[in-house]
């Protein structure tokens, strides 16, 4: 009998949430087949079977498990399997409901559904008559959003009929929020597909909402002359290997952060924590999801070293090889939409960080110098910061420092 454990995917990883079991107890699995999906606060990970055998999941879906905790067993034959289920009773089916509950808890408290919990919800299992369940399934109603009027709060036919009447108001909103499904009441719209919000998408979903709903975000825009930046890049080119703009901008931002420690901060409880280290995350697109691997200590590295780090992180992202350590403990983020001809935008802070730099395209624009209109390469810059802890002037000054360093990279060593 082999134990199935939560693997340690990175130095900082302490626990993972059990997202789903891909097999039921008693199923035969092959070595390296994905048997279990886990999720840290950064990534989701497919856990492969350590060997061929008969699987017996024990830990219920939705629970947080410590690293190296045993969550299931793999028996080599039927006899061993029967022994295993006797020794290790499963809590998996019970957990399915818990998982459902935790999803509903994960909806931010601003949601009115959550503020007025129905009495049935508090009892864990939703009481509903078989008819009410089949009607709710048919009409795609969420039983959690319906108050039961039957004995002991049981949801009965009349409650479903009432909910159906109210459906255009409530039910569609619930389904929009929970599943992103198209408005079913409208005859003019038909859904191609309903994509469940889970895994990495669920993390992004929750983080973005959390960010905008819990902080006071202010974005300031400027642009900088990019001629010196382009010149620097040219000078750093070696053996046809071009240094990326992101590497230079990461170095510039890191040096600017050293001069503005009030930006390199997090809100921790009742205090503002200033970080000694600078770790800059770079927003990347991977498998239709936003992912932000982190460059460690760019203030202490050369641009070439940073470029090497970024290249490595990009290749890890493409091959899905990122570990939670690659994603953890950023103190600031850079996001670049220049490739899409964007000049300025309003990036959203990634909590617990307090600021994010949005980089636009480099393009020649007419500028006035000595009362003459001349062409000059310009780069768009947008800085979003948490106005709760960073006032407008220091925020703007930080962006000005970045602008100055872009226009005169020598200032980086000041």
């Amino acid at each position, binding site marked *: 009998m082999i134990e199935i454990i939560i693997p340690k995917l990175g130095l900082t990883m302490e626990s993972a949430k059990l997202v789903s079991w891909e097999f039921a107890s008693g199923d035969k699995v092959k070595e390296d087949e994905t048997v279990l999906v886990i999720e840290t606060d950064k990534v989701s990970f497919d856990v492969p079977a350590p060997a061929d055998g008969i699987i017996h999941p024990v830990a219920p879906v939705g629970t947080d498990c410590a690293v190296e905790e045993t969550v299931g067993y793999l028996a080599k034959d039927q006899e061993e399997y029967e022994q295993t289920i006797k020794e290790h009773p499963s809590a998996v089916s019970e957990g399915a409901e818990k998982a459902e509950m935790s999803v509903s808890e994960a909806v931010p408290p601003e949601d009115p559904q959550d503020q007025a919990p129905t009495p049935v919800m508090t009892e864990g299992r939703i009481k509903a*008559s*078989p008819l*009410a369940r089949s009607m709710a399934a048919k009409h795609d109603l969420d039983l959690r959003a319906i108050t039961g*009027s*039957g004995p002991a709060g049981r949801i*009965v036919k009349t409650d479903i009929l009432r909910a159906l009447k109210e459906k255009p108001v409530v039910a569609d909103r619930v389904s929009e929020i929970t599943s992103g499904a198209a408005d079913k009441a409208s005859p003019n719209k038909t859904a191609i597909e309903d994509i469940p919000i889970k895994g990495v998408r669920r993390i992004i979903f929750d983080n973005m909402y959390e960010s905008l709903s819990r902080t006071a975000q202010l974005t300031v825009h400027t642009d900088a002359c990019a001629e010196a930046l382009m010149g620097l890049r040219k000078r750093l080119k070696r053996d046809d290997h071009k240094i990326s703009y992101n590497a230079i901008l990461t170095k510039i931002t890191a040096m600017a952060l050293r001069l503005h420690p009030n930006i390199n901060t997090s809100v921790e409880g009742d205090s503002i924590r200033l970080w000694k280290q600078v770790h800059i995350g770079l927003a990347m697109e991977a498998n239709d999801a936003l992912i932000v691997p982190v460059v460690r200590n760019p203030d202490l590295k050369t641009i070439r070293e940073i470029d090497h780090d970024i290249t490595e992180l990009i290749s890890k992202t493409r091959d899905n090889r990122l570990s939670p350590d690659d994603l953890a403990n950023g103190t600031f983020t850079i996001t670049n939409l220049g490739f899409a001809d964007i000049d300025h935008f309003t990036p959203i802070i990634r909590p617990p960080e307090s600021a994010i730099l949005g980089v636009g395209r480099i393009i020649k624009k007419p500028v006035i110098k000595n009362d003459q209109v001349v062409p000059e390469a310009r780069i768009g810059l947008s800085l979003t910061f948490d106005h709760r802890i960073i006032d407008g002037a220091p925020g703007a000054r930080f962006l000005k420092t970045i602008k100055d360093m872009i226009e005169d990279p020598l200032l980086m060593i000041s």
Partner: protein
Amino acid sequence: MSEREISCSSALAEAMAEEMERDETVFVIGEDLTAHGGIFGQFIGLSETYPGRIIDAPISETCIVGSGVGAALTGMRPIVDMHFADFVTTGMDEIANQMAKIRYMFGGQAKIPMVLWAPDGAGLSAAAQHSQSLESWFVHTPGLKVVVPSEPADVKGLIKTAIRDDDPVIFFQHKRLFAQTGPVPEEEYLIPIGSAAVKREGSDITILTYSRMTYMCLEAADQVAGAGINAEVVDLRTLKPLDFDLISESVKKTNNVLIVHEACLTGGFGAEIAAKIGEELFDHLDAPVTRIGAKDVPIPFSPVMEEFVLPQVSDIVEGIKKVLNR
């Protein structure tokens, strides 16, 4: 079809006369038949019209049922009058081991075209040994058909079908319903065994019942109509075979079920129906299937106590409200 109002007794007598006229192999055997015309006067006049075909037997149910089984084996169509349904106990081997099983045990070479006619039920202060509703014993014995009619028209249509049936049929007729009148067609008609009937259409709850309780349920349905509850009353008429198609149709419409029978609750036929509905119509149920039956005690002699033990209209009204959570 033209109709007139006659009692269950008259409907039964008419059916017997018609079948005896139609088929000379039909005869009746039982106790006190010629002298009294049957214990409830149900056969008055028949012995004069069909001399020799209404046979008085000694007081031995073993012999009476045994004679019926033997006669049926030789090609006759006997109607065995049990006097009181309670007396089946002394003829039980003949009923359960012979009548029910012979066709099966002889590989279909013999048939038992026989009716065991048994007046059952309480409400006449006839005490524990003369007041029982024993239908569950027989639905639990494969090989028997069990008929439990309520209104006169059903009695006539079903007893005629039972007499013509080539297999043994137990025909329970409730004592309290002999005098019950109702419209019965003038013309000849038959009601197939295994067909239930909606006696009152409704949309809120299905009341499944049979025999005397049909009338009690109809009264309860009328009472709750005032409270805005539209109850459907289904008279099962036959317990085996059971008309589950009609039950299913009604339950799918109302989503609520109350089962009412006079037999005591524990192990009563209501349990069988409830289980079947739970298995096959689960997704259509909006409330637990609820049963009403007599209390689990011998039927008392005292009229007050007897009434206390048997389901009353008020119990059914309460049952309806409980199912519907009103």
